[in-house]
Every structure is written in C-alpha cells, then in structure tokens.
C-alpha cells in the first residue's frame, strides 16, 4: 500500500507514460485499420515524449530561459513587505554588485518574507536537454506520420482497402493463383 502511495506521488508521470505507450501498442496490434495503426504509433510516441520531459523536471524549477537576478529581485520585491527606498537601493545594488549586495541593502525582513524571497532568488532551471530532444522529435514525428499516411494512401490505391486482414487475404489469393 505504501508502495502505491509513494508511487502515485513520485512516479505518476512514468505510469502515465507506460499507460499511453500500452494504449498505443494495443491499437497497433488489435486494430486492423491501417490509419488506426498509425494513430496508435503516434500515441506510443507521445508516451515516450512524456517520459523524457518528466525526467527533465526539477521541483520548484523554472523554464530554462535565463532569468536574471534583477528580474527575480524585482518580482520578489513586489511580493514582500519592504520600504520603497530600501527596495530601490536593492535594485540598484543588484545591477552593480550582484545578489549578495542587494540582499544586504534590503536589510532584515520578516522570516516568512525572507524565505519566500530567497526561494524565488534561488529557483533552479529545469533540464534543457530533454526539451531539445523532444522538440525536434515532435516535428520529426509529424513528418514521419505524413510518410506513413502516404504509404497507407498508396496501399489503398493498390489493394482497394486499408484493412490489414483483407490485404493479407488478397495477397494469399494472388500467391495461390500464381502457383496453380
């Protein structure tokens, strides 16, 4: 039971990725319609996308686009109770001498405010690498889906059907006719 609870909290994204992949796999195996099979493949693919992006998540992190100390401080100051002139001094200090000087210029804060400000200033970035891999993969996946669908269209032109079982039957009949 505790395994299920910790799993739901820590591994939910991974379980969703497994479910999506298996839904896609089921469609690929069970559906006879070729377009349905292509759709199943694309579901399978998005499951893997979720897996990668989930690995890149860092708790409390922000998107990997540089967030300067000055921007963080400006946002933080709008959220805490601080005298305007000390806030201005801190903003001036962060441009000149960096974050530590700005914290010093700000002086003492209420403990809750200080914690909130420090958390914002220290927010890490999520891992950019999975984002890069998946970003290109999404565009590639739509291109490959186009090729797959083009092949399905040609199959329709050649066999007159896109049901895989009927195609197999037609192939068998052709083979039997050729042999006799």
């Amino acid at each position: 039971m505790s395994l299920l609870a910790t799993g739901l909290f820590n591994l939910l994204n991974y379980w969703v990725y497994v479910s999506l992949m298996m839904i896609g796999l089921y469609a690929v195996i069970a559906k006879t319609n070729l377009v349905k099979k292509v759709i199943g493949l694309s579901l399978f693919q998005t499951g893997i996308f979720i897996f990668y992006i989930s690995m890149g998540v860092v708790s409390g992190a922000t998107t990997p686009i540089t967030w300067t100390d000055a921007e963080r401080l400006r946002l933080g100051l709008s959220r805490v109770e601080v005298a305007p002139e000390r806030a201005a001094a801190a903003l001036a200090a962060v441009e000149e001498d960096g974050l530590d000087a700005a914290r010093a210029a700000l002086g003492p804060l209420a403990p809750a405010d200080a914690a909130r400000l420090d958390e914002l200033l220290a927010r890490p970035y999520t891992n950019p690498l999975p984002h890069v891999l998946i970003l290109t993969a999404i565009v590639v996946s739509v291109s490959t889906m186009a090729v797959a669908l083009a092949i399905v269209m040609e199959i329709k032109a050649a066999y007159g059907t896109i049901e895989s079982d009927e195609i197999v039957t037609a192939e068998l009949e052709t083979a039997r006719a050729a042999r006799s």
Partner: protein
Amino acid sequence: MMFVAAGVALVVAMMLFLARALLGPTVYDRILAMNSLGTKTVLLLALLVFIHDRPEFVDIALVYALVNFVATLALLKLVEHGRLS
C-alpha cells in the same frame, strides 16, 4: 494562488467539454467541443505562464490562438465539401 484556483477550474471545465467530445453523438458536437477546448487551452496556457512567474512568455498562448483555427477550418471543409483542396 488565485491563478492556480482559476487554472483548476478551467481544467475541470475542460473535462466536461471532453466528456461531450467523447459522448458525441454527432460529429458537430465533437467539433464544437474541440473548438471550445481550444479556447480553454489558450486561456490555461496564459494562466500557467503566470503561475510560473514568467508572464513574458505568453507567446505560447498567442501561437495557439493563431493556429487553433486551422484544425477547425479543415474539419469544416471536410464535413461540408468532403475535400481539402
């Protein structure tokens, strides 16, 4: 906090629209639900960017608002004229 509350409300609304899209019964109901879901998605994208404290990247919502129309247009063309060309 209020952004998160509004976001959860929007997700719940999206679930209701999704139920309509799954139930149908006609294809028009489904396209209507998809269209409304698209609007909801744009709003939720904008809200999420605010929840994450990076409101300057609201571009995602803008792209969605621009591109969302394509799918609806194509579906309409299919049900009305039966072709894309």
